């Protein structure tokens, strides 16, 4: 059975060009870039090139790029560094819809005595900017906000927000893991001090991330060790993965320049419109305008997400759900709850996330296979008949 992979916000296929680029560093080019001999030293050249490619993708300069092991490490490093660099400030701000990498770190800091403001979002997942600005104070050490939401794809206006925060002299970090490579980013048009990105969300392998540190930003390392990454992150470089990420960044840039995401957007819109038309009592979670072109979160009322996913799995279709049963907890995702999505809908929410490898045929298959699944589960549901009767009144 062919796999139809619409779970690209979870992870992506490693691009074949990326695999080709990294393989030699797992075999013949095994030198240590810190070595004095040219066998190792040549590898440092390749890392330099990769660093430039990643910098180009976000409009940064190469010396502002620090390679890490993943997005979570980048987030943790950034936020802890910001807090440590401002020891007199005991207030930190984030949103209610962050990825656990940020959310759980803030909750940990809260237990350590930091005052935390969680900025709310509205029913469309749009950030309450007035609430954010009115909570900034001279005691605020750091503001961390995601660039794009992993569940709904909703994009926060990071350019505008970061400029305002910068005016107040507060450190601004953004978790841009879902945004980098999907939307054009020019970091110098923003007031962002620290930015996290992750390789495996843009067709590089798992196990490689980046922390962008704007020149002049106060910083203290999380991993203390050798002089690697100019002392900002100790540890021998993950050479093959760094080279891979460099290649992936180059490909992402090319794809963005060629307007490749417009194509993905058209497929996403077709999927979304067709499912909404064919399946009653369904709706999109999140603002449809300010959104990543590859993502849609659709709520199918009166059915449960895990059951939908497992039936889709029978057809080789891969997606995600914000339902309780899939999250390993008993409550639906904190993102959908923060948006006030009713329980009838939150439990039956499915996230489809596309990539440049998604084909029109695949989307057609999903459009064909999904309605019978929802219909079947609804016919089993004790609430369905009642809901239809209610709607008819």
């Amino acid at each position, binding site marked *: 059975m062919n796999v139809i992979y619409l779970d690209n916000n979870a992870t992506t296929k490693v691009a074949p060009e990326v695999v080709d680029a990294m393989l030699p560093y797992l075999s013949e080019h095994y030198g240590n870039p810190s070595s004095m001999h040219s066998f190792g030293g040549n590898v440092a050249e390749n890392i330099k090139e990769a660093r430039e490619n990643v910098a180009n993708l976000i409009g940064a300069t190469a010396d502002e790029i620090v390679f890490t092991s993943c997005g979570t490490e980048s987030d943790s490093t950034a936020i802890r560094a910001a807090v440590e660099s401002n020891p007199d400030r005991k207030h930190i701000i984030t949103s209610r819809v962050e990825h656990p990498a940020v959310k759980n770190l803030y909750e940990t800091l809260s237990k350590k005595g930091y005052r935390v403001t969680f900025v709310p979002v509205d029913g469309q997942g749009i950030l309450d900017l007035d609430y954010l600005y009115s909570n900034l104070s001279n005691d605020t050490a750091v503001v961390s906000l995601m660039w794009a939401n992993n569940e709904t794809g909703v994009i926060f206006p990071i350019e505008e927000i970061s400029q305002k925060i910068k005016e107040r002299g507060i450190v601004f970090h953004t978790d841009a893991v879902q945004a980098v490579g999907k939307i054009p980013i020019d970091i110098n048009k923003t007031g962002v001090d620290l930015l996290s990105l992750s390789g495996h969300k843009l067709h590089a392998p798992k196990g490689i991330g980046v922390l962008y540190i704007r020149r002049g930003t106060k910083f203290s390392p999380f991993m203390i060790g050798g002089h690697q990454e100019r002392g900002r992150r100790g540890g021998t470089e993950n050479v093959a993965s760094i080279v891979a990420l460099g290649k992936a960044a180059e490909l992402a840039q090319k794809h963005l320049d060629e307007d490749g995401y417009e194509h993905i957007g058209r497929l996403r819109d077709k999927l979304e419109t067709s499912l909404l038309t064919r399946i009653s009592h369904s709706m999109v979670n999140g603002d449809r305008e300010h959104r990543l072109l590859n993502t849609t979160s659709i709520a199918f009322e009166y059915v449960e997400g895990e059951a939908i996913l497992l039936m889709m799995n029978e057809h080789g279709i891969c997606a995600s759900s914000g339902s309780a049963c899939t999250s390993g907890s008993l409550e639906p995702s904190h993102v959908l709850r923060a948006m006030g999505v009713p329980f009838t809908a939150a439990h039956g929410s499915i996230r489809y996330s596309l990539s440049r490898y998604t084909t029109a045929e695949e989307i057609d298959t999903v459009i064909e296979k999904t309605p019978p699944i929802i219909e079947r589960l609804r016919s089993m*549901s004790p609430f369905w008949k009642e809901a239809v009767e209610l709607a008819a009144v």
Partner: protein
Amino acid sequence: MWEYTDKVKDHFLNPRNVGVIEDADGVGEVGSLSCGDALTFYFKLDENGKIKDAKFQTFGCASAIASSSALTEMVKGLTLEEAKKITNENIAEYLGGLPKEKMHCSVMGRDALEKAITCHLGEPEKEIEGEIVCECFGVTDLEIKRVVNENHLSTIEEVTDYVKAGGGCGNCHDRIQEIIDTILGTERPVMKKVPSLTNLQKIKLIEESIEREINPNLKKDAGRLELVDVDGNRVMVRFGGSCASCVKSPVTLKHYVESRLRELVTPELEVEEVQ
């Protein structure tokens, strides 16, 4: 991804007895949309008082649907007396087991069956008995006591897996722990809980034990204990207050402080007094 048995997958993908019995002899409804799963269970009796047909409607995940389907198969041919004896454990066994986080699905099946039998016997629908412990999922102390007893549960996580209590905001965790403690008896095997401690955890636990238990007790005699250092399993302490001058302090040290810390932290500890 959950590890479901083939039988769970089969009952999910090919559920038996989905539907409604219009002239049912008993109907039991449990769960709600907000909780994420709900089940309506119907049965019809034959002239001998045996269940001749059973049907269900379920809103929920794969294991909720599979548990409901299993239940309808299990009760067919049984008298109500026999059906009453079905436990949630039986439903899980029928399916070849359920992931522990999904045991609440089997409990939901058992609850629906009980409700349907109560309904048939014309007994009034039971009011909520006991006091609500978990506000998020509306679970009472009686329900928690029952699953703890029937399934030999010993941790809050297990209670959450079985009846969802404690799976929301977490405010009721202390209360759930109290219920578990009461059932297991106050002498909890604390040592079992901490098989391998990191140094940091060990020091923290020693500190907490001194602060929470040992010092409040010594204080009754105007004494106190101070933690000086921990080196491996050597715990160095200093007595203060009236203990500092008390001739019995070496006895207190060995027979109370050391033995209590061994119980609360780890049995290898050696406690010694330093100046």
